[in-house]
Structures are given as structure tokens and as C-alpha cells.
């Protein structure tokens, strides 16, 4: 059984994230890391493997991104993934979600006949939450998304998820695309042993040509969407802050709300 888990390398959310002059994200000048939400995906991929003890299962971690994105793959290998794939090509820079999903879909196909493609619920930079559905569409696979609980048995997959209107159990048959939320269970930390073992695990780098993609299909110029302008939000003007002394805080709060017509 082949499991591919997709891991995105993103600028650290607690650092000062910036855009470049071409309105694409600065992925070099800012510290990056494996998107925290993809750690949950790696965890679930590993748990599927562990729970299916005795079966031959390979977990491949896949990232599409600049040179440093290999760090995301390495982290997944340290956590316990068996193999790594890094799609690295200058032509990819500035890709939109559509092109990203194309590269991921082609890379998944190159990994081999795949049974399960696991995603995080969203990246922590753009956070569109659409790549899993786009990859599923491109691969012609069903999707079971936003799982908080994942169970597999034979070729059946069942997930539980917390929708807006209902808590649902969704069923599907392998092969399929899965995405998991941060409710699915804490991700493990790489152990010292895991960190050492990761150094010996196979890690392949592919260009878009290796995936049979024409360079003109990806990157900023080929994007189906275009960012025309970016602007840092003007800092909020400092609000009024009062200390609550003998109930004065509540009175001041109510007066503020009344002055803004909320009461």
C-alpha cells in the first residue's frame, strides 16, 4: 500500500511575513517551517500504517517548493515517513492553487499507484483549503476531507468530522484523498533515533520536466489568478484601555458600547 502525505513549507506565522515586489510571498527572507497543520497529516499517515501492522506500507512525504522546502520533507522523515519527494523547479515560483495542484497530482502519479493521499486541512500561509479537493479532481479520486477521526479497514475508509450543521461520518473506498484537521490528535515529535534514521532515507528531487509538465503550465505567468496589489493593514489606532476599579470598568464598557450604538 502506498500513502503519500503532502507537506507544505511556509513562512513562520509568528515572524514578519512579507510580499515581494511581484506580489508573491517572500519565502526566502523569512524563516520557514513545515506547516503546523501538515504535522497532523503526517501523524495520521503514520497511524494508518501503524494500525495496519503486517501490511507492506510505504509513506512518502511530498513537498512542492523552493530549495528550503526540503526541510518540510526532512521533518516528515524524522517523524517516521519512509521516503521523501521534493519537487523543486524555478518555473514553479508564483504558482497559484491550480498549478500547485497540478504539480502535486503529477508527483503523486510518479510515486506510483497510490492508495491514500493525505493532506492538512489548509496551509498556514495562504490557507485556502482547496488543494486537497483540486488534487482529488485531477486524479479522479473521491475526497474525504476535514477528518477529526480516521479509520481504515481493508479498502474502506471512515472518517468523522465536525461540520457546520452536523457531525458526520463519511465513508469511502481506497484509493482516495484525505484531509485532516488539528482535532485529529497531537503530532509526534521526532525522536533522536528518528532524526538519525531520517538521514539514510531515500529523498528524490524532481523538476517539472521529470513529471511530464510543460514549464509554461506553472509559475506566475501561467497562473489563472493574479494578485494586483498588496498592502499592509494600517496599524489600528490605539484604543482606549481602562482599569477596572470598583466596578468602573463595567460602566465604562457599557458607555462605550452605547456610544457605538450596540445597545
Amino acid at each position, binding site marked *: 500500500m502506498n500513502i503519500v502525505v503532502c507537506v507544505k513549507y511556509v513562512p513562520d506565522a509568528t515572524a514578519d511575513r512579507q510580499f515581494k515586489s511581484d506580489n508573491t510571498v517572500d519565502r526566502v527572507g523569512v524563516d520557514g517551517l513545515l506547516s503546523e497543520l501538515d504535522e497532523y497529516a503526517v501523524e495520521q499517515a503514520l497511524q494508518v500504517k501503524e494500525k495496519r501492522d503486517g501490511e507492506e506500507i510505504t509513506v512518502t512525504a511530498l513537498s512542492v517548493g523552493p530549495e528550503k522546502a526540503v526541510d518540510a520533507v526532512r521533518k516528515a522523515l524524522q517523524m517516521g515517513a519512509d521516503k521523501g519527494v521534493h519537487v523543486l523547479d524555478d518555473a514553479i515560483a508564483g504558482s497559484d492553487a491550480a498549478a500547485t495542484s497540478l504539480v502535486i497530482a503529477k508527483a503523486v502519479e510518479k510515486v506510483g499507484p497510490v492508495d491514500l493521499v493525505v493532506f492538512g486541512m489548509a496551509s498556514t500561509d495562504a490557507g485556502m483549503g482547496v488543494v486537497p*479537493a483540486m488534487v482529488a479532481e485531477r486524479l479522479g479520486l473521491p475526497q474525504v476531507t476535514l477528518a477529526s477521526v480516521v479509520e481504515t479497514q481493508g479498502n474502506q475508509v471512515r472518517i468523522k468530522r465536525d461540520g457546520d450543521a452536523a457531525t458526520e461520518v*463519511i465513508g469511502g473506498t481506497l484509493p482516495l484523498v484525505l484531509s485532516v484537521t488539528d482535532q485529529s490528535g497531537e503530532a509526534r515529535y521526532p525522536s533522536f533515533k528518528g532524526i538519525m534514521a531520517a538521514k539514510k532515507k531515500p529523498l528524490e528531487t524532481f523538476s517539472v520536466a521529470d513529471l511530464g509538465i510543460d514549464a509554461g503550465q506553472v509559475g506566475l505567468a501561467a497562473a*489563472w489568478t493574479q494578485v494586483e496589489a*498588496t498592502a499592509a493593514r494600517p496599524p*489600528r489606532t490605539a484604543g482606549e484601555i481602562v482599569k*477596572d476599579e470598583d466596578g468602573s470598568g463595567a460602566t465604562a464598557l*457599557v458607555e462605550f*458600547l452605547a456610544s457605538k450604538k450596540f445597545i
Partner: protein
Amino acid sequence: MSEVLVVVDHVDGAVKKPTYELLTIAARLGEPSAVFIGSAAQGAQVAEAVKAYGAEKVYVVDDAQIKGYLVAPKAEVLQQLVAKTSPAAVLIQSSAEGKEIAARLSVKISSGLITDAVDVQAGGITTQSVFAGNFTVNAKATQGTPVITVKPNSAAPVEKAAAGAVEQFDAVISDAAKTAQIVASQPRQASGRPELTEAAVVVSGGRGTGGDFTSVEAFADSLGAAVGASRAAVDSGWKPHTFQVGQTGKTVSPQLYVAAGISGAIQHRAGMQTAKTIVAVNKDEEAPLFELVDFGVVGDLHAVLPAATAQIEARKG
């Protein structure tokens, strides 16, 4: 004028407010057409509702065959409607489901996808609020039929009488689209309060409540507000996950957001930073949330909120 397809968000034929917002936005781009995927018997009732907000046409798509499957069949329905109507754009609500339908549709029709727009102007120029609300981005689709998902509260719904001409649309759904299935579903219990993502006022509690949400809820009720929570409160089991506001919870964009006992981590701010007015009650004057507020009270929420609630009730008489 080209049609603009608006996917109707509804619960059993009861149209939800974000649909009216989408219809209002659609009128800036062309002639609004509502797409209702649901029980055919409810088509007339839905048409009545949406024609008051500018829907010239209402495509009624009977979902008897596809109810219980996930988003793939709905994307096929829209693909076929796009082929039929060559619309200027397709507008869908930015819910988890809406974004996934949009994602599959955009690949099917090779068209640019923009998600989480907080505004759309004539010509399809969108505004997005990104990086936890620290940047505002203008974007547009450059290929195909723009597929745009729009966050709730992005426009004030404008009433505008229109024809609302009902047209049954029979889509052809492939077997491949029916492969992921809802096996069981437990509807959420109505709280009697407004829905979090649509509410004009939201009052949220965090770890600082210590697990006692009584004063947060009473204060919310005095303002007719929805109740939210931080992830710390949700992870502690004090509130279900559906209450969570933030990066991995709900994004809210209300007129007023009140955070009580919430420190203001970046992931929480990502879900509420676009609120028009922000208020915090926190006993730590160094709490990062105070950097965002229009008004802040440094104090114990269990003292401040009940006192404020009593005064508000007294004012109401």
C-alpha cells in the same frame, strides 16, 4: 448582460443570509442567477426568497440523486450550468464545503479560483485579507470564468425585486462523483443564539474563563450576540469545536467582537481581526489582544461581565 451564478446556501430550503449578500455582490458583475441544489419541492419557496434580492433566474436542481454524497456532484452540476449559461462569474459562500465545490469546479472548467474574498468589485476584482489580517490583497482571475468564494458579512444585502424565473435544471451526475458518502449525520442542536459566522456581535471566552462560561453567555445574550471560544477553551472541553474562532476554527467578521479571557495569539487573531470594533476584557494588561482593541478593560471577566450585563439589561428597561 451576462448572468452571474450564485450558489444558494440553505438548510432544507430555508435560504441563509450569506446568499443575499452574494446576490447583492453578483449585481455588480452582471445579472444574478440563483442556483438552488436541494429538494425540488422547495424550489418555489426558495425562488420567492431570492427574487427579493435581485435573482432574475433561479435554477432548481433536484438533489434526490446526490443527497448524501459530498461535493463532487455539486461541482458537476455547476460545470454543466457554466457550460449552459457562460456566466461572468460563479459566486459561492466561503464555507468549507463551498470552497471544496469551488476547487473542483475551477479545475473542471480551467478557471481561476479566488477564495475568502471580503469584497468583489465590478470587473471581478476581489479583496482578500491574508496573513492573519495583516495584509489586504487585491486579486482577479485571469483565465476562464472567475470562481470566487466570499466570506459571510462581506456585503450588506440589498433588497431588489427581480423576476425570479424558475427553471428546472437536470444535471447528469457521473458514478465517479458518488464515491464518498455520508454514512451518518447528527445535526447540531440549535442554541437559540445567532450563528457564529453570520452574527453581527460575537462574544468569545478563552482560558481565562476557567471553564465557567456563564458570565460570557449572559453578556452575549444581553447584546443578542453569538458565543465563541478560543482553542484553549475548546481543547479543555469547555465548548465544542464548532465554537472555535481562529485559523482552524471559524472566521468571524462581525460589527463587534468581544474577547474575554483570551490572550490574542496570532492563530486566534486570524479569525477575528477583521471585526469592525474589537473589545477585550483581560486581567493582564500586557495581553497582545489589547494591541487590537478599540476598547479594553483590564480586569477580572467574572466581575466585569456580570456588572456590564446588569447595566445593559437595566438600560433596556
